């Protein structure tokens, strides 16, 4: 690919990304949003983050049932620790340790 083409990609990718991150702030911040929409937007957090987790866990081009024991166990442990301790660092550490231990065992 030519250098010029690479920079065209960089410019457009940056603009598109900035647009997606600013559109809600610019158009909704000064507006009264209907209660139904405001309630729906409160569920964006858990929904998008959970969708991200599932997408990463299911892997590249894989399908849902392909998720293995180490992955599932790591996520379950991370969820449980986050529930009890309400601390992301503890949750992450416990999840990763579980993941690596099981990877070493299962292979």
């Amino acid at each position, binding site marked *: 690919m030519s250098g010029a083409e690479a920079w065209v990609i960089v410019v457009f990718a940056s603009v598109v990304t900035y647009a997606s991150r600013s559109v*809600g702030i610019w158009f909704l*911040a000064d507006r009264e949003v209907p209660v139904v929409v405001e309630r729906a*937007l409160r569920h964006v957090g858990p929904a998008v983050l959970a969708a991200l987790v599932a*997408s990463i866990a299911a892997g590249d081009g894989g*399908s849902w049932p392909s998720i293995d024991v180490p992955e599932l166990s790591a996520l379950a442990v991370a969820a449980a620790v986050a529930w009890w301790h309400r601390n992301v660092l503890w949750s992450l550490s416990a999840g990763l340790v579980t993941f690596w231990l099981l990877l070493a065992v299962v292979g």
Partner: protein
Amino acid sequence: MPFVPDERSGPIDWEAVRDMVPLCIPAVPFGLVVGLAMSESAMPLAAGQTLSTTVFAGAAQLATVSLAGIASWWAVVLAVAVINARHVMYSAALAPMFREQPLWMRLISPMVLVDQQFALMSMYPSDDPRSVRRYYLTAGIGFWVVWQLTTAIGIVVGPAIPAGLRLGFAPAVMFTGLVVLSIRTSSTPRAAAAAAIAAAVVSGASVGLRDRLGILLGALVGVIVGSVVESRDRALS
């Protein structure tokens, strides 16, 4: 006026630093992987590293550097648009927080509105505009700096990371903790849990869709299911 330090506590919100550090940890190996991909890409290194500065989104950057040279430029841009479309929901969900923010804050903030930043802000109380601003900028700019450094380092040391550690999975573990926290701190935990479960099932089932469209699909279904459960719970109570 931008960046006027708060007389009482200075420009840096240490609470934001404390909250952001655990979210930075899995981003470091991810940034190294992105840097490694940049070093192997058909794209010039300077262009790849500029993506870290202005696009600042791991998944979209990975897609860009791996598609560059294979797909046409507009196909690459389209892939970035689809992968980053979830940010529209982030900025819509956080909009009330910007009601009392000045123009410069509204212009800068979208630059750092990444997944981790949204997760933090969606759990932050939005009553005081000044503290929202300090918290947002400290966490966002801090994370941005970490990302610049790790992707740059990744270009050099990426090839030395053992593939057996499967570090690409670390972000999934971290986001799981954040999902659970967002359910626990929600004012409607039942609806939030329903939203998360529905989103995960749909996203996982549609992972075969191109450009990770499944994330968007799952998120939309999750938001709808959460809203339905919430209005049912309200009707019953």
